[in-house]
């Protein structure tokens, strides 16, 4: 059932827009660059692609239009009739037919030109063929301008139709204009139909929904019907007639007893009799509306007779007033019940019922003893029901308090707390004290524990735990301490003073070896008084030395060199100092190790200007900082 597709129909573009759309799409989505010197098959392929692409687009869009719009034969006859009334079936079918033809024509054009292009031998010729093809396709579409406009209007109107489900429970309101149909629907449902004193305020069908007996009901409001033959009816009235004809609903014929609508009772009766054939097979109720103005009993004899006649025929007549809501509920209940009964009856008459009935079995348990077992309703529910019925004032809501106090209102949730002493409800509860959470200390036995702790503390104090050690120190120790500190100070000063002195003069590094000069060298040497002096050999001599037969070192023996303590132990007095020395060494090496340097003097930078930091664009942001 194509109920909701009416809203999902795609927009039908105007002819001009359609052409622009498709052509720009072709330009964007197909390759644009082509040169004379390309191979001919490439040029052909390029232009053929464009033609086919355009054809494809047109074809797709037009097919979509054709499938989206409902086929009048496929949808429910109510909607088919409604659309006929509103849009004229013939015009509609014609428009869609034109679109279909256009689509086929475009396909043919494309096919032809693609075939021709196979024989194009230059870029110019292929290009002209493509131009011709696209031009023809666009002209075909330009001719459809009227159809497309019409379809767009149809689509817009169609999407705004109220969604009436033709198969569900429906109540249909009909009658002369201005009798009170729209007021009724406003009262009974949440619909908000315009109510005005002039006739034909309601110009189309309106739907409202209501609940009764846990079921959803549709209430359909129709425009007023005047009394003339079917052929002379206009579109607005025809909508009402269509609804009456096709919807299987309970009909509520509304009559205006006070004749405020501008038509006498006899005229209304006439209309009623005229459209009587439409009410066949439908539960009917006559509403005598506007009874607050004039009741039936206040009417004249002959008018009263009208109503008595109706009742005699077996039609239910109920007096209602949309203003005072008198009889509205009654009408609702009556109409709904009768419609339900009617629907059940029709269902029972169909063949499908037997399948369902065969599977249903109503089990009535037989009484096993005489004990009464009524249903249990809790007390609270009974009270609530009573309160609902008597409309007793409910408890004061927070919202009421807020409205009362206006600006001074503050939300105070503490008043709802359930404490042991209700007068403590407004207390400000402390949570934190001096960096501790009070909640961590809460304990019902806290006082007892505190007592124990204090007792323990007393015991400890008595045992002398908290006595100060200051007094146990005697005078002697104080004096010794003072002397010791003086001694240490003096020592430090002495050390500093000795450091100032230059006792050794400038020293040679220990790697320097004792050199005994040859006679030649001793003569060249100026300082002859130093026979044994440790001198640093010049480089060339060192080299020469290496090339000759290695002689044992003349200045020291090997045992002597071994007896010299290794570098990291020389000058270290004890384990404590050794540890400190090692720590100092490691500390000074930490930085270098972390930077991966060979030593103190390694200042080599492997990458002075790293490219990844200094070049390139930023992903987001400016490159003004690097």
């Amino acid at each position, binding site marked *: 059932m194509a109920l909701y597709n009416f809203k999902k129909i795609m927009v039908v573009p105007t002819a001009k827009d359609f052409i622009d759309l498709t052509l720009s799409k072709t330009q964007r989505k197909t390759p644009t660059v082509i040169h004379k010197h390309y191979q001919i098959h490439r040029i052909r392929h390029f232009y053929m692609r464009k033609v086919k692409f355009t054809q494809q687009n047109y074809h797709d869009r037009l097919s979509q239009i054709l499938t989206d719009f409902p086929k009048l034969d496929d949808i429910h006859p109510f909607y088919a009739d409604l659309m006929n009334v509103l849009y004229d079936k013939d015009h509609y079918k014609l428009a869609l037919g034109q679109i279909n033809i256009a689509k086929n024509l475009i396909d043919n054009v494309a096919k032809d030109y693609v075939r021709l292009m196979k024989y194009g031998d230059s870029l110019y010729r292929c290009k002209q063929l493509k131009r011709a093809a696209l031009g023809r396709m666009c002209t075909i579409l330009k001719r459809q301008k009227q159809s497309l406009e019409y379809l767009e209007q149809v689509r817009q109107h169609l999407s705004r139709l109220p969604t009436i489900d033709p198969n569900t429970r429906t109540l249909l309101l009909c009658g002369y204009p201005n009798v009170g149909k729209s007021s009724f629907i406003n009262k009974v449902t949440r619909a908000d139909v315009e109510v005005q004193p002039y006739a034909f305020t309601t110009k189309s069908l309106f739907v409202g929904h209501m609940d009764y007996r846990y079921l959803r009901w549709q209430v359909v409001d129709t425009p007023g019907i005047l009394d003339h033959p079917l052929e002379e009816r206009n579109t607005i009235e025809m909508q009402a007639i269509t609804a009456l004809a096709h919807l299987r609903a309970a009909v509520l014929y509304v009559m205006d007893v006070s004749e405020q609508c501008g038509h006498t009772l006899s005229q209304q009766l006439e209309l009623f009799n005229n459209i009587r054939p439409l009410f066949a097979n439908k539960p009917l109720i006559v509403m005598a509306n506007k009874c607050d103005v004039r009741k039936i009993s206040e009417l004249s004899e002959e008018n009263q007779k009208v109503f008595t006649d109706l009742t005699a025929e077996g039609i239910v007549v109920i007096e209602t007033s949309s203003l005072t809501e008198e009889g509205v509920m009654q009408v609702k209940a009556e109409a709904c019940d009768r419609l339900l009964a009617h629907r059940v009856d029709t269902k029972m008459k169909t063949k499908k019922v037997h399948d369902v009935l065969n599977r249903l079995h109503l089990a009535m348990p037989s009484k096993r003893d005489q004990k009464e077992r009524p249903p249990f309703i809790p007390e609270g529910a009974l009270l609530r029901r009573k309160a609902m019925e008597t409309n007793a004032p409910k408890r004061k809501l927070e919202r009421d308090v807020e409205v009362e106090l206006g600006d001074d209102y503050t939300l105070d949730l503490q008043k709802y707390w359930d404490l042991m002493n209700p007068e403590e409800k407004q207390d400000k509860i*402390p949570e*934190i004290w001096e960096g501790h*959470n009070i909640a*961590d200390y*809460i304990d019902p036995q806290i*006082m007892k524990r505190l007592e124990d*702790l204090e007792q323990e503390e007393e015991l400890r104090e008595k045992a002398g735990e*908290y006595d100060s050690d200051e007094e146990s120190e005697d005078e002697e120790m104080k004096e010794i301490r003072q002397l010791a500190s003086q*001694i240490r100070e003096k020592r430090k000063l002495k050390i500093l003073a000795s450091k100032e002195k230059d006792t050794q003069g400038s020293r040679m590094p220990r790697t320097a070896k004792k050199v005994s000069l040859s006679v030649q060298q001793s003569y060249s040497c100026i300082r002859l008084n130093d026979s044994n002096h440790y001198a640093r050999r010049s480089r060339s001599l060192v080299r020469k030395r290496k090339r000759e037969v290695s002689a044992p070192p003349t200045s020291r023996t090997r045992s002597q060199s071994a007896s010299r303590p290794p570098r990291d132990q020389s000058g270290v007095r004890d384990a404590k100092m050794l540890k400190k020395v090692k720590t100092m060494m490691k500390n000074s090496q930490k930085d270098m190790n972390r930077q991966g340097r060979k030593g103190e003097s390694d200042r080599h930078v492997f990458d002075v200007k790293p490219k990844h930091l200094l070049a390139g664009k930023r992903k987001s942001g400016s490159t003004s900082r690097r």
Partner: protein
Amino acid sequence: MRIEKCYFCSAPVYPGHGMMFVRNDCKVFRFCRSKCHKNFKKKRNPRKTRWTKAFRKSAGKELTVDNSLEFEKRRNIPVKYNRELWSKTMEAMKKVEIIKNKRQARFIMNRLKKGKELDDAANISEVKKNIHLIRAPHAGQAKQLEDKMVQKLAEDVEMDE
């Protein structure tokens, strides 16, 4: 509102301070400042990082087991407000705090006493060895000799008599 404990250094984290990290196994870590947070991210063990309370407690540098510390314990069942209970608790808290501080201070003092003894021993040995740096070795000896002689003379005079 609660004052939480920093996961790394066990310092109090007041509301509006620090950072909270929730792991995929739903364990929550609170940090008092970025120092603790960064150390945590470097996967350092707070029990081995010397400046944290966790290290100090596990290395026995601070009071761990004591009755006064049992008063402050995180309770998972909240208690309904009751004015007298709250006021009693507040008083008790203050007293417990005093006792706790005393005991903690005493513990640390006891620990440092040993150092004091070593100090004393070092002082004594220092004085014995190097007293010559501040006092001349025979500084008071002349006076002592004089006193001895005077005493001896007095004894002689007595004996004579």
